Every structure is written in structure tokens, then in C-alpha cells.
């Protein structure tokens, strides 16, 4: 109780201090209030994760009651397009789960022929990255952890190195497409970047970072790989495991796979479709999951309510919605343009320096905070740079990669880390300490962010 009171006192004291600091640096009263409330919400997620929605509700109400923002703009900044996209995707994922798509993926991993430790390691890291690209990191990590635990159980080896490698690869992979992470669709929606932009620019850079990460992890965990190889020799590959597990792709799974594949194709072609039909940017991108979800709910009409009520994470989505409103208030009051101007002055309007600042603040910040919180805060600031004639594209990529790769640095850096380590603790009673994760996470986090930094500042392709 004492600890909670201290945290609460610290939270409000810091938020009020930031508000006064903003006032002292020349912001208006409403700008200061929006900064203080947004800071309180961010700190609330940091100190009281389970109460983040309460902070978001109360904070947004205070903004409305103090006339810092009006109702019309609350609706404008709520980014309903992003929320609806995520709802549609969650319904599609719900169908895939129900029809056994993920169990089928897990069984494919478990059926690797002529298994070796290196082959297993390569498959789990590649699958983790690609699966998180195609669905999202939080969904994919559960299934990858299941596959890793099954194999490690069978060969009686410590699963920890393989679980950490899987999670790190998942976080790296989540930067590859719009679908990998909620910040992907948030950035696409606010920046006008298309799925094709992500495939052409983010995906190759993600693959390069993944390749480097695989080598770092293989070196870091070379002992664990050697032990697994010895066990494979002793127990004779995984033929027994192949007999143990069977997930035949049934008719409904095949139909679900076809639906998911069509959704991916239409999402990837959204920009061309928008050009052909003269639609505003990202209309088709946001419409495809909704149309597909609509057809799924017709096909599986008896389970339609379950998809909406159980598979859609309303708690998280409502938090996102109110967070976007609070971040939007910073823009509405002009606080973000004020911050943008200060940042430009501090970086002498040097685009390389500016990109570096955004990338590294993004990476370090998201190692502590939820990356959606961080990116939501930065988006209006980056939009503020746009008003000052700064070229924005490298800044958007810096936000994406900083937000995704920073999650690898600490064990609380991303939801995927927390979910995977939770399963590990429950299943194997292995409690990962901060430092066990930190050194490997920091090494991968720093090296991959450095690679992205080099690409963003040296390659004209990203400018």
C-alpha cells in the first residue's frame, strides 16, 4: 500500500512538474494541461499497467471538462480507422485460431525432417519473424512458444535460450509489415505509407536485421545448441515426436487459409486499388479486414458474437482509442508544433541528427514503455515537423524500427516478451531475471538499431 501511494505521488508530481516545465518554456495554459495529462497517462501505464484504461478514461474526461479539447476533435483524434482495422484483423485471427491454423503451423515446425539444433534454431527464428509479420506479434508468440516447449520437452533441454531467441525474432519480424504490430497500422494511417512501402522498405531491412540477430543469438547460445545436438544424437532426431502429433489440415482450415491469403493479397494491393478507384489513401487497406471479417461472420454466423466478444480485445483497443485522443490533444493545442520547433532548433535542422534522435529515443523509450504509447506520442510531433518543411519519410521509419526493436532491450519492452515469459514461468517454473534478458536483449537491440540507423542516414532510398 505504501509502495502504491509512493508511485501515485511520484506519478502526479512528475506530471505536474512536466506541466510547469512546459509553462516555463513558453507553452500556453491548455498546452501545459495537455502535456501534464498525457504524461500522467504514460506514467500510469508504466507504474500501473493493469489500470491503464482507468487513467485513459479519467485523463480524457479532464481534457474535455477543462475545454482543452472539444467533443468533435475527440472523435477526430480517436483514429477509428485504426481501431476498426484492428477489430477486423482480430476477427480473422479468431477464425484462424478456431480452425486450427496455428496448431497446424506448430505441427509443421515439430515435423522437421533430419532435425539438427542449428536447423531447429533457424526454423523457429524464421517462423517467428515471418508469422509475426503476417498476423501480429502477440498472437504468433503463443504458438511459437508452444512449438519450442514441445521440442525442448521431448529432448529434455532447457527451453530458455530458445524461448528468448523466439521472442527476439518475433519483435524483429513485427517491423516487417503493416500487420506485424499495432504501431505499423498506426504509422501507415497517419503517414500515408502504404503496404507496398512497408514491403519495399521495411521488410528488407527487417530481414537484414533478422539475419544478423540469428548469428548473434546462435553465438550467444552456442552451448545450448551443442547440448541440443547431443540430445538429438542420443534420442534419435524427432521421429517419435512426428508420430506423437498430427494436425491434418481439414476442409474448414483450408477454406480459412484461402480467406486469410486473399485478405493478405488485397491488403498488399491496396494502394493500387485506391489509385484505380480514386479513393483516399489507405481506404482499401482499412476496408479489407472489415469486409473479410463481415464474410467470416456470415459464414460462421452461429459464432459471430463470439468472434466480436471474445476474440476482439476491447480492453486494449479502448486504451488505444483514448490514448490517440490524448496524443491528438497535444496536436490540437499546438504543444507538438512547439516541441517540434524546439527539437529542430536543438538539432540545428539537421535531418540526419533529427532521424537519429527519433530512432534512438524510440528504441530506448519502447524498452521501458509500451511502443504504442510511445509512437502515439511521437506521431503528432513528427506531423509538427511536416508543418516546418522537414522531410518526414525517414522519421516514420525511425519511429517504426525504434518502436519495434527497442522492445528487445528489456524483458518488459514488448507484450510478446511478457506473454512468452509468462508461459515459460507457468509451464517450467523458470523465472527470468532482468539481467538474464538484458545483456542479450541489449546486444541485439543496439546492433539492430545501429543497422537501421546506418540504413536511414546513409541510403538515399530511405530519404
Amino acid at each position, binding site marked *: 500500500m505504501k509502495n502504491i501511494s509512493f508511485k501515485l505521488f511520484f506519478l502526479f508530481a512528475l506530471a505536474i512538474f512536466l506541466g510547469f516545465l512546459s509553462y516555463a518554456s513558453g507553452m500556453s495554459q491548455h498546452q501545459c494541461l495537455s502535456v501534464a495529462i498525457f504524461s500522467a497517462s504514460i506514467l500510469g501505464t508504466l507504474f500501473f499497467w493493469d489500470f491503464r484504461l482507468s487513467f485513459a478514461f479519467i485523463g480524457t474526461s479532464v481534457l474535455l471538462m477543462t475545454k482543452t479539447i472539444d467533443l468533435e476533435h475527440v472523435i477526430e483524434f480517436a483514429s477509428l480507422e485504426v481501431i476498426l482495422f484492428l477489430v477486423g484483423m482480430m476477427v480473422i485471427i479468431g477464425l484462424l485460431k478456431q480452425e486450427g491454423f*496455428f*496448431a497446424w503451423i506448430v505441427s509443421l515446425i515439430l515435423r522437421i525432417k533430419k532435425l539438427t539444433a542449428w536447423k531447429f534454431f533457424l526454423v523457429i527464428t524464421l517462423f517467428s519473424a515471418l508469422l509475426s509479420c503476417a498476423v501480429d506479434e502477440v498472437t504468433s508468440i503463443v*504458438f511459437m512458444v*508452444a512449438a519450442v516447449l514441445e521440442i525442448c520437452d521431448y529432448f529434455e533441454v532447457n527451453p530458455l535460450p530458445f524461448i528468448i531467441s523466439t521472442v527476439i525474432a518475433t519483435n524483429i519480424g513485427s517491423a516487417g509489415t503493416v500487420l506485424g504490430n499495432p504501431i505499423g497500422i498506426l504509422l501507415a494511417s497517419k503517414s500515408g505509407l502504404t503496404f507496398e512501402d512497408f514491403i519495399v522498405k521495411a521488410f528488407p531491412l527487417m530481414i537484414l536485421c533478422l539475419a544478423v540477430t540469428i548469428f548473434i543469438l546462435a553465438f550467444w547460445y552456442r552451448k545450448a545448441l551443442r547440448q541440443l545436438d547431443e540430445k538429438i544424437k542420443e534420442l534419435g532426431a524427432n521421429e517419435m515426436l512426428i508420430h506423437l502429433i498430427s494436425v491434418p489440415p481439414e476442409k474448414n482450415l483450408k477454406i480459412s487459409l484461402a480467406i486469410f491469403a486473399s485478405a493478405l493479397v488485397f491488403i498488399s494491393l491496396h494502394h493500387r486499388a485506391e489509385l484505380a478507384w480514386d479513393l483516399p489513401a489507405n481506404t482499401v487497406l482499412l476496408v479489407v479486414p472489415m469486409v473479410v471479417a463481415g464474410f467470416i461472420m456470415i459464414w460462421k454466423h452461429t459464432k459471430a458474437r463470439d468472434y466480436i466478444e471474445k476474440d476482439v480485445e476491447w480492453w486494449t483497443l479502448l486504451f488505444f482509442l483514448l490514448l490517440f485522443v490524448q496524443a491528438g490533444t497535444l496536436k490540437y493545442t499546438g504543444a507538438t508544433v512547439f516541441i517540434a520547433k524546439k527539437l529542430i532548433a536543438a538539432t540545428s535542422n539537421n535531418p540526419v541528427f533529427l532521424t537519429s534522435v527519433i530512432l534512438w529515443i524510440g528504441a530506448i523509450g519502447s524498452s521501458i514503455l509500451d511502443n504504442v504509447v510511445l509512437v502515439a506520442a511521437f506521431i503528432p510531433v513528427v506531423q509538427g515537423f511536416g508543418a516546418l518543411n522537414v522531410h518526414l519519410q525517414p522519421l516514420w521509419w525511425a519511429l517504426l524500427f525504434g518502436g519495434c526493436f527497442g522492445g528487445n532491450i528489456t524483458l518488459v519492452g514488448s507484450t510478446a516478451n511478457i506473454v512468452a515469459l509468462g508461459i515459460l514461468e507457468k509451464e517450467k517454473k523458470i523465472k527470468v531475471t532482468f539481467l538474464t534478458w538484458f545483456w542479450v536483449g541489449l546486444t541485439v537491440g543496439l546492433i539492430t538499431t545501429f543497422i537501421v540507423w546506418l540504413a536511414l542516414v546513409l541510403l538515399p532510398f530511405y530519404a
Partner: protein
Amino acid sequence: MIVSQVMTKEVVGLLPEENALQALDKLLEMGISGLPVISPEGKLLGMFTEKEVIAKIFPSYLESVGGFQYDQDAKGLKQKIANFSGLAVKDVMRKDVICVEESTALYEAAHLMLTQKARRLPVLNKEKKIIGIISRGDVVKAIFSQYK
């Protein structure tokens, strides 16, 4: 009608330090799906049910990885079953239990059974000590005997 008029007063309970495997045997012998876990002072600590036993021995990700099929028992499952005999009832029991008071109306108990999917509800007195248990069967019997 209130709960105290309908409840079963002779409560068979388990002690928190009791062996989980022996407790499971007791469940199977009695042909019921769960028993309350009661402290030596008579306070309700939790519920030991078949559901909790299943959750303890099967992988926690089984629910998410729908459609996962084992042709034979997996190694991890065998290991967990072997470990189960070393556990105490308190390691397996569910701690958040929906309870009613002796003066609770039967309608309220029925409402809780339906909305919370509870098969049985422990009945507590003002000192929070368990004084009975009311099952779905008790509710049905009480309602029908009233109108027969």
C-alpha cells in the same frame, strides 16, 4: 426461500496441506467434480476441482493452440502427472471462489450459478466461516419440491 433452508450442512472439505493426488482420489470416489478447501479454523481458502487438475497437468497454451492433437501422451504430460503426487491441495486449488451468505435468496444463488457458471456455491456466515454448500441439484430439488 433463502440459501440456509436449502444448503447441505455437512460439508466435506479438504485441508490445504493435503496431498493433491489423494484429494483427487477422494473426488473420484465421491463422484463429484469439486470440494472446498478449508483452513483448520473453518475459513474457506479455495476450491479444488477437476477443472483445476486438468489445467495443472495439461500445457497452459493448449486452449490457445486449438486443434492440437496428441496421438500418444506427450513427455511433458507424463512428467506433470508424475509431479502431481508431490503437490499439495493449496498448489492446485482455485483461490477466487464465488460464495453466498446464509441469508442470500435462492433466486440470487440461481442467478450466480447461471451467470458465473458455478456448479456449487460455498455458504459463509458473518465470520466468513463455511457453514454449508449449495449445489445446482439443491436448487432444483428445492424449487420443484415446493410446487409438487
